[in-house]
């Protein structure tokens, strides 16, 4: 075939071209930006730092480099006139296609080289956390197709405009869109910087990789469509753009191909399953819904939920069986995750017609149906699909079904039949999943199961009341231990077993618990003498604290955090610090976050006090107070802090850097020192503990999630800002 021989020729030519080698070499370096300046991943797990950031940085920077390569090569041929000879020798359309295909091939080779080049370093860094397949998957899903998309756009733009600067402007505009504010909401716009907000070490999840692959496919279609359009615009017979375009249209397969590609892209985009199609903002309307004017009746004796997850496809299918006493009159409303489809609704064996609304709210949508007037029948609802995430929730709250982790909440797992209130009678819950995963319903393990022959287990449990569902499954291990009057259930990812041992995590939990309970008060989360500490995947942002359990972010026992000297003298102390956050921070008492005040001040102070009790005054002074004093002195000595009038002369970038570093010092070093000063002013440690204990009991677990401010703290101490100024 002509194309193939042209392709081989162009490939050979590119390999002999110096610029291509230069671009490839730069592409090999591009991931380093992810170690140094570009951190698109929100979590700080090892895989975020050493896979996510470098791959995504390489993806974005490399895309630009390949665009430069494509435009430079095309423009060189045009300006030097080699294209005149080429046009007399080869059919221009096939030749253009061969050139693009050759560059795409080279970029693919560069991806492979890139992946291989960083493999040893990453494997060493991640050590026991390293998974070769997962490592390569990230290159395959993010880097490879994005580079292709970029080449197609750039090559297309140049063919259309025949001007380097115009192509560059078009490309830059497109790239800008990908980074714009709009794209922070509409994730599908992110073609050059695909969204991958979290990477988990303990529970590697491919949700973002799935969405990445899907968005890449969408953008490949669009880019190929634009590229096809450029072929229509291919200049021939020394004609201008308009006339060449009209002539190009006569090759009907070009406009048809272009239209087909753009259509496929648009259809894929519109029918994406990842993110709900609803409002951008969270609508605070969850269970009760005045608009629908629903009557709540108590008409059920029980419900049975059976759910089966397919961890390979990431889908769920379920059946809910409600034992109804008297159906309500008028329409019933069923709420479900926007990604799920209702397959059937039957009542007493009879099919029931239903209608759905397209617009979803917070990633859920409603289905309406009317039940026939028959008493004491079973309402059976079959549903299933790929759970989508509410637009407004991203990238925070997150559901996902993967081979290593399942996180499903509320209508992600079972439908909510809204007119029947919350009293569903007895609730049987049954879930089938691979036997490698350990399931938890609201942080309680589900222990009863039947082993199936296909490598899955069907777990079942009976709930006395209708839970607001929170279902998690993963490669978890559970440690139980006790301290004084309390039993701990410590649930964490299997891969962290060695870290938990190495850093003496169990002991720290007990120490912190004892210390904080003694000094600040009993945690109201603790019931029945059992306290569950549950590690979430870093995919799931946001912590929980409820009766008897408390969750924390995965990152807390990430080796990377545990080796951060800012948080404590040794890794164990870092863990103590993080554990204290269960009292002061996202869980427990919430604190305002400003330039100087945050939950860190109280947490660092409390850590210091605990360490002082544990290791003695000398140790605490050396590693805490002296360290704070040194850091604060250093900050005060900084030229720009002394002469802020010169600050304005600094470029914005430096100003931001300085202010970030100042804030860090204020939170972790200055505030603890100021609290220490307050301690002296109010009359010693005991007095301070009393004050903190009062604050804790006043603000802990307030339903309005009030943030304690610096002023609140001062008021409790009876001090003024002036009093705590350090000299």
């Amino acid at each position, binding site marked *: 075939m002509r194309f193939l021989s042209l392709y081989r020729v162009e490939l050979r030519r590119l390999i002999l071209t110096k610029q291509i080698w230069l671009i490839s070499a730069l592409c090999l370096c591009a991931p380093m930006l992810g170690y140094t300046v570009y951190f698109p991943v929100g979590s700080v797990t090892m895989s975020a730092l050493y896979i996510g950031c470098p791959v995504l940085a390489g993806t974005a920077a490399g895309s630009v480099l390949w665009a430069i390569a494509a435009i430079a090569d095309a423009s060189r041929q045009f300006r030097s006139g080699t294209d005149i000879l080429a046009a007399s020798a080869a059919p221009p359309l096939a*030749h253009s296609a061969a050139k693009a295909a050759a560059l795409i091939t080279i970029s693919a080779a560069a991806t492979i080289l890139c992946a291989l080049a960083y493999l040893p370093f990453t494997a060493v860094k991640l050590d026991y956390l390293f998974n070769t397949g997962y490592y390569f998957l990230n290159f395959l899903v993010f880097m490879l197709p994005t580079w292709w998309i970029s080449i197609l756009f750039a090559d297309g733009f140049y063919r259309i405009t025949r001007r380097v600067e115009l192509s560059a402007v078009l490309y830059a505009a497109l790239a800008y869109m990908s980074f714009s504010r709009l794209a922070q909401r509409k994730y599908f716009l992110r073609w050059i910087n695909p969204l991958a907000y979290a990477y988990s070490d303990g529970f590697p999840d491919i949700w973002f990789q799935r969405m990445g692959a899907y968005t890449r496919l969408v953008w490949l279609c669009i880019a190929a469509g634009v590229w096809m359009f450029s072929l229509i615009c291919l200049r021939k017979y020394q004609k201008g753009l308009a006339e060449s375009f009209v002539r190009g249209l006569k090759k009907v397969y070009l406009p048809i191909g272009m239209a087909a590609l753009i259509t496929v892209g648009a259809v894929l985009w519109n029918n994406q399953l990842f993110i709900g199609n609803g409002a951008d903002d969270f609508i605070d309307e969850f269970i009760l819904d005045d608009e629908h004017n629903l009557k709540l009746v108590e008409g059920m004796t029980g419900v049975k939920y059976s759910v089966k997850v397919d961890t390979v496809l990431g889908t769920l299918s379920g059946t809910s069986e409600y034992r109804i006493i008297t159906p309500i009159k008028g329409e019933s409303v069923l709420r479900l995750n926007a990604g799920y489809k209702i397959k059937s609704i039957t009542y007493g064996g009879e099919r029931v017609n239903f209608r759905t609304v397209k617009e979803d709210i917070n990633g859920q949508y409603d289905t309406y149906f009317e039940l026939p007037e028959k008493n004491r029948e079973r309402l059976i609802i079959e549903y299933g699909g790929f759970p989508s995430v509410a637009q407004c929730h991203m990238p925070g709250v997150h559901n996902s079904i993967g081979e290593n982790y399942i996180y499903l909440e509320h209508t992600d797992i079972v439908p909510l039949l809204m007119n029947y209130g919350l009293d569903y009678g007895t609730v049987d819950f049954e879930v089938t999943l691979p036997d490698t995963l350990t399931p938890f319903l609201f942080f309680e393990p589900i222990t009863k199961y039947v082993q199936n022959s296909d490598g899955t287990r069907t777990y079942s449990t009976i709930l006395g009341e209708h839970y607001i569902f929170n279902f998690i499954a993963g490669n978890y291990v559970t440690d139980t231990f006790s301290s004084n009057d309390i039993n701990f259930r410590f649930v964490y990812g299997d891969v962290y077993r060695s870290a938990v041992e190495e850093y003496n995590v169990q002991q720290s939990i007990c120490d912190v618990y004892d210390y904080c309970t003694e000094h600040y008060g009993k945690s109201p989360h603790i019931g029945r003498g059992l306290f569950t500490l549950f590690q979430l995947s870093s995919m799931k942002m946001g912590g929980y604290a409820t009766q008897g359990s408390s969750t924390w972010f995965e990152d807390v026992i990430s080796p990377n955090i545990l080796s951060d000297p800012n948080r404590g003298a040794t890794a164990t102390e870092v863990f103590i610090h993080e554990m204290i956050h269960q009292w002061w921070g996202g869980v427990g008492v919430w604190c305002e976050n400003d330039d100087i005040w945050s939950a860190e001040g109280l947490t660092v102070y409390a850590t210091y006090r605990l360490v002082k009790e544990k290791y003695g005054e000398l140790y605490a002074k050396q590693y805490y107070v002296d360290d704070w004093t040194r850091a604060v002195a250093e900050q005060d000595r900084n030229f720009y802090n002394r002469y802020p009038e010169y600050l304005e002369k600094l470029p914005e970038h430096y100003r931001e850097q300085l202010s970030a570093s100042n804030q860090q010092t204020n939170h972790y070093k200055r505030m603890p020192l100021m609290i220490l000063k307050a301690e002296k002013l109010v009359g010693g440690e005991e007095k301070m503990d009393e004050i903190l204990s009062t604050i804790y009991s006043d603000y802990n677990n307030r339903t309005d999630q009030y943030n304690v401010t610096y002023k609140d703290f001062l008021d409790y101490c009876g001090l003024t800002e002036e009093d705590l100024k350090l000299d």
Partner: protein
Amino acid sequence: MKIDIDNITMIYPSGKKALQDITVNFESPGFIGILGPNGAGKTTLMKLLIAGLIPTKGEILLDGKPLLSQETQLKAQLGYLPQSFGLYDELTVWQFLDYMAALKGVKGRKYIDEALERTSLTEQKKVRIRNLSGGQRQRVGIAQALLGNPQLIILDEPTVGLDPEERIKFRNIFSEMAQNKIVLLSTHIVEDVQAVCNRVLVIYGGLILYDGSPSVLISDAAEHVGTYIAQAGDPVSEGCRVVSKVNVSNGIRCRIVAEKLPKFAEIAEPTLEDAYLYCIHKEGRE
């Protein structure tokens, strides 16, 4: 192979009429020289022949079929040397010819070696194009046009920049090749044509002034070429065009062409160059 150009007019978008109502046929074997001053329309005619341009009016047929529907067949048999073109500087001569051969779908090293030999580039085959002299680059251009033994060779001013020795060599190569194909060569160097072409087209201002054998062109100019000795500062007689001036002991020997020679001029034997200039001169006066 047969090419029929039927009543073609080419007007550029700028409004410039480059060719006007041209009708001409080429058939193999044939070695056709196209002569004409700058801006006459030679390049335009060639671009039309390789389907690089579309005529404003008229039609070109390749073996009886419209040329534009035969582009693939045309390119398969075409060797083309544009008047201006670019080469990939970073490639060696051999790599470049290999690249062009592959673009043309010509298989086999022997064609490349043959083209290298014909253009005396064998020694330079490993030299990067960046390091070639102007004439050597021109020869690379010719070499790529010869690749694969094409049936239609169109050379737009191929001998520009070549030293006299190479020029003579190329004339011979071209004429050798014309044995069984169509070779079209444009130039304003008349000697190139005289030596080898069996047919000359004289183009001027977008019109074909002459189409026939060189000898007829020459015989048409008989009695229209003369010489005389002039002194410096003498005005040229009206209606005469000076072809050459040579300083001799008793003044300047002028060679002129004219419809009607002045009395003092001595009739001279016309060369092809005289004949060509006469042809154009005659046209210009009309």
